[in-house]
């Protein structure tokens, strides 16, 4: 069973042209044969390995499915849960991971490629709590692995579950300023905005050394207010003196093992001049589907983002999200945001408004 995982790991290590399609079809066959609910689902759609020749025709699993069943091709090594703060009637998604090597390799390769292509190691601080205190958070695990493999010293945690520890964060920022050692900040967007408010009230500002960078993720979840991406970049410059080309937004989901990142650091490293957009590693691709028909949309049109993540070989490679996006020329992804919530038209109370739903 691990042969297919080894093939994916080899692809992550050295993505070759033209391999994605063949590998995706092999992963599909593996998942069809080893995950009974997915097999039933594919059969109900009349899409089975022998009849699917294009990876785009592999049936995607809606994120709702992760809340209902265990989509796993083997016994779990880890189970990651979604934060449960997204819209809808919701229990939390359970992403069962039978081979943790896939997530480990994918997450670190993505970070290396898009956040740290220009340095071997760097000082790190995290406003995301430690993984051992949040064992069901895939994000916390990714940050912990980054600390183990790419931090110049010990990764400093300036957060406990549900509770940032801003004095530790401030001390770390001041030390970076004082010692002239670039710092990499990991944070959720919500925690970042909370800190920016905290700093503004206290007139705190920092001049971090050149090469410092920040990775934020998670959208509005836990944020005290909404702020546009431009607003975030401006605030990050004012608060930390980190320029926009070192500020990276990460887009990921608990149901995936790979992530999209703003291209800015990578583009600078490659000497490419273009606007900011989300890029994925070679083993993660997106297809945009019409929100009503779920058919692929024309290039440049908005729709639901459907992810094909080879690093999800042990669970469900094809995942239909509830996020809206546009695929741009050159393969970049423009994230529009969450699909709209139900606007209740009726005087009939719907589940969208039911207490606890």
């Amino acid at each position, binding site marked *: 069973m691990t042969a297919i995982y080894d093939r994916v790991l080899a692809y992550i290590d050295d993505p070759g042209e033209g391999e994605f399609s063949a590998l995706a079809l092999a992963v599909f066959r593996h998942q069809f044969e080893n995950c009974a609910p997915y097999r039933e689902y594919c059969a109900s759609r009349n899409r089975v390995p022998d009849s699917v020749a294009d990876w785009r025709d592999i049936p995607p699993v*809606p994120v709702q499915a992760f809340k209902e069943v265990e989509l796993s091709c083997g016994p779990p090594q880890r189970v990651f849960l979604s934060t449960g703060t997204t819209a809808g009637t919701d229990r939390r998604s359970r992403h069962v991971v039978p081979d943790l090597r896939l997530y480990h390799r994918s997450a670190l390769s993505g970070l290396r490629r898009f956040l740290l292509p220009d340095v071997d190691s760097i000082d790190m601080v995290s406003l995301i709590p430690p993984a051992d205190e949040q064992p069901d958070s895939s994000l916390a695990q990714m940050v912990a692995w980054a600390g183990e493999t790419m931090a110049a010293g010990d990764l400093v945690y300036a957060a406990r579950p549900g509770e940032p520890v801003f004095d530790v964060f401030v001390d770390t920022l001041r030390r970076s300023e004082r010692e002239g050692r670039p710092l990499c900040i990991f944070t959720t967007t919500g925690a970042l905005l909370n800190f920016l408010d905290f700093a503004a009230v206290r007139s705190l500002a920092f001049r971090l050394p050149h090469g410092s960078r920040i990775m934020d993720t998670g959208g509005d979840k836990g944020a005290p207010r909404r702020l546009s991406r431009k607003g975030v970049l401006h605030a990050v410059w004012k608060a930390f003196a980190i320029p926009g080309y070192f500020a990276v937004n990460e887009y990921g989901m608990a149901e995936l093992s790979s992530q999209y990142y703003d291209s800015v650091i990578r583009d600078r490293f490659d000497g490419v001049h273009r606007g900011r957009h989300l890029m994925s590693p070679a083993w993660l691709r997106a297809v945009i589907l019409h929100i009503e028909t779920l058919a692929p949309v024309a290039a440049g049109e908005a729709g639901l983002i459907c992810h094909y993540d080879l690093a999800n070989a042990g669970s469900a490679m094809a995942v239909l999200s509830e996020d809206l996006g546009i695929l741009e020329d050159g393969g970049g992804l423009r994230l529009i945001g969450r699909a*709209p919530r139900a606007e209740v038209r009726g005087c*009939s109370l719907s589940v969208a408004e039911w207490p606890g739903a």
Partner: protein
Amino acid sequence: MAEVTGAADLAAIVDGLLRSRERLLERNPAEIATALSTVVEGWLSPGSAWMAQAVDAACAESGFSTPMVRAYLPTMIEPLRGAALADLVERELGGWAGLEDFRTPRLTLHVLPSNLPGHAAIPTAVSLLSRSAVLLKPGRSDRAFAGLWVDSIRSADPEIGRCVASCYWRGGDRRVEDVVLERADLVVASGGDRAIEDLRSRCPGSFVGHGHRVSLAVVCRDAERRAAARSLAADVAAWDQLGCLSPQVCFVEGDTGAARGFARAVADELRALSRRLPPGWIGQGELLESRRFREAAEWKDFASTGRHLFAVSDVVTDGCVVVEDDLSFTPTPLHRCVRVVAVSDVGEVAGVVSQHGSTLEAAGVAISSAAFAAVRDRLNRAGVPHVVRLGAMQRPTLQWEPGGRSRLTGWTSES
């Protein structure tokens, strides 16, 4: 219908309504009822130009399919037919003389919901009957009906017609809204809980709020299942389940197998109705909510032996029936989505729904004639204000008291 652009426009309309009301006070309520009855017959007579215009406008404004509007817009007026208003006065006040002692609001503002067309008819008639001037603020997608309804009253009886006006402004536009909130003796408003509370907090006069409600169905052991399935499907499909009388959860006496058999029959009936009464427009968020509802049940099916999902078709908006594993009472995303729950008896239903008393609106019951009254009383005690036969939920009479509040005395007693 006036599209209000400023506070001065609305103030002038309110002034006019209050002046006209002086003449209304000189009219006999029975005479007003007769005049309104004429208006109602004008709408419901075959080939009615009023109804034809309203159907066209409602199809364009509301997004419901044309067959749906044709079939159900008349049900918004039919409760006023014949002696219905006189019967209402008799029931609530003991006869016309009761209206003489009545503390009637000088001006009533009706803030109408936007979910279905035709909401203006009954509130207007009841308020005019009590000799209150009426200002209608229709929902965004029900503006044309309110305007036509006012025009038809003016056409039939100009003196009464001058006491009612329909004006649209964006809900929550305080610059305009406060003008009428300050001058209305009574505000009757339907809408979401937040909007209701906002309006309530700004009303110096009396306020009656109708928040969002949920309805249910009960199929008793002795009911003929195929007929009950047909009745439930009809009540669900009407107005694409967006009305507060639309059942969302159906409790079926019997085991899970019986619930599954019933769910399959309801899906079959909804399939037939989807051709006769095609679903209308659906927003993206609502569509996703419906899809989530269907997917949750479908994936349960892939992971277990019992069947949960009975889809009407592959098209999400055609709806689906989902059999629940546990005794629960949770609404659906509407748009023809129904939960079916197996229960041992009506007592179990009463137990589970009574925890949601303030949000309950109606129940439709399929049962033999002899036992209906006992089940109705049991559900009334559990907090369901309106209990009728399954299949009749969407064709209410004036005896239906929305939110369990009397139509005449429920409004005026707070004045």
